[in-house]
């Protein structure tokens, strides 16, 4: 536990001392949500902004949390600090848990900032319970994204090898997770494949709660799947992180 906290503290210090990283992880999603607002403003008034605003903000958090976490961990390998941590007695579980803790703060901030901006810019009027649930689901998605980043990083030997996973995992989730069209309208195989992406389950909760009259029973299944996603990815990452060449 002590070494987990050490890794987490070090990850946070690194994040805070890297201005480019901070700009990319915090300012970029806010700017993109604003660009989305400008784009949506050109569409006819009949366009259902609420159907897309929060899911797109959730997607941005998902994409950036995944990418930044994966690249940070791969950098540990390319710089030789991963090997050095292992030789200094850190265990796989301590390193992974330290990263989860370190990125949890960033994921929380991204979830709060992205969601708050989307709700403010698009003038979405939700009650407190709905806002609370939207935060919970975006936050859970951010954590799952961090876990996905950790897991994927174990397959990359350098930063460049992370990027092929963007078109493989992140971009298909835009089309197959119900973000743009209902998954029921997709071919059966694509509908089935869509269920494999964490964004599908997050979007499922978001679409349920932005409609009036939702109850916790309606969303608990998808929330549980999202949480289970994180646990399974964490376990897989613990197994695949290479300690020895």
């Amino acid at each position, binding site marked *: 536990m*002590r*070494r987990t906290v*050490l890794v987490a503290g*070090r990850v946070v*210090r*690194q994040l805070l*001392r*890297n201005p480019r990283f901070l700009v990319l992880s915090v300012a970029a999603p806010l700017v993109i949500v604003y660009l989305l607002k400008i784009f949506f403003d050109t569409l006819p008034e009949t366009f259902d902004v609420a159907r897309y605003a929060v899911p797109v903000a959730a997607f941005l958090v998902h994409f950036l949390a995944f990418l930044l976490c994966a690249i940070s961990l791969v950098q540990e390998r390319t*710089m*030789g*600090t991963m*090997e*050095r*941590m*292992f*030789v*200094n*007695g*850190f*265990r796989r579980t301590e390193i992974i848990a330290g990263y989860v803790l370190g990125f949890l703060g960033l994921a929380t901030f991204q979830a709060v900032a992205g969601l708050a901006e989307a709700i403010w810019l698009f003038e979405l009027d939700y009650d407190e319970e709905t806002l609370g649930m939207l935060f919970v689901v975006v936050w859970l998605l951010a954590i799952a994204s961090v876990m996905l980043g950790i897991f994927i990083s174990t397959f990359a030997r350098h930063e460049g090898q992370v990027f092929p996973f963007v078109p493989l995992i992140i971009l298909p989730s835009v089309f197959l997770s119900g973000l743009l069209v209902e998954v029921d309208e997709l071919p059966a195989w694509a509908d089935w494949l869509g269920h494999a992406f964490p964004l599908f389950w997050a979007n499922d909760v978001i679409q349920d709660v932005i409609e009036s009259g939702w109850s916790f029973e309606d969303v608990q299944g998808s929330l549980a799947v999202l949480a289970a996603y994180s646990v399974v990815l964490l376990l897989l990452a613990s197994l695949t992180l290479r300690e*020895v*060449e």
Partner: protein
Amino acid sequence: MNSIEVSGLTKRYGRVEALEGADLSVGRGEIFGLVGPNGAGKTTLIKGLVGALRPSGGTARVMGLNPLRDRAVLRQRIGYMPQSAALYEDLSARDNVRFFGAAHRTPDLKKKVDELMHFSDLSGRADDPVHTFSGGMKRRVSLACALVHRPEVIFLDEPTAAVDPQLRSRFWKTFRELAGDGATLFISTHLMDEAMLCDRIAILRKGRIIATDTPQGVLEQGRTRLTVVHDDTDTKETIGGHPEDLAAALRPYGLQPGVTAIGVETDSLEAVVLSLIEKAEVG
């Protein structure tokens, strides 16, 4: 008990054999140098000993412990400075050393970090981010990270590359002090003047150890060239051989007044090492 025992250690990467049955032993308090050209297997051997690499065959023991099976215990007792800087570039020198020191529950960590900053001549830049440092300064921080928890066996992969001669001399003074306190140092180097400072060296070529001896012992395998200058004929005669052959070579000359100068030139360690490597390649 020796600090390090290696027997028949091999490592294959596909078809490439990086280590071909390395054998060596290093005693406690010894400074042992690993000498060889690029790609000889020096880093592979060091990684095998610190448990960062799974050997394909053979055995390795560090303080009687298996670097892989007993790594949890062993890693508390060893220090490792890799060939690359292996530092967090966004963090300061002090933060880097403190992070690795804290991993070992190092007592009086703050004091030790301050001492190491002073020793590495980094006191004035200790709180600057490492990405603003030169290559030599990064090597100093990296060495400090390896020493902060006072390990019993220290593995240093080319520790003085890009370090200026004055600081290198200070590093070696510290290595000698650490060895005097009972620490074992296992150092890979390209530099022959550094190899001369080791207690013993092993010469590694293409994954195979071709010689292990004291630097003096290796030097004695070299050739000595004797040049005799006659004033009357204005000729030079060069006789090559080992030191023990020289007396016989000089005997025919006696001490003739015509012999005005005798020059003796002995192979440098570098020349001997190169010659041993060439011999191994031919044989």
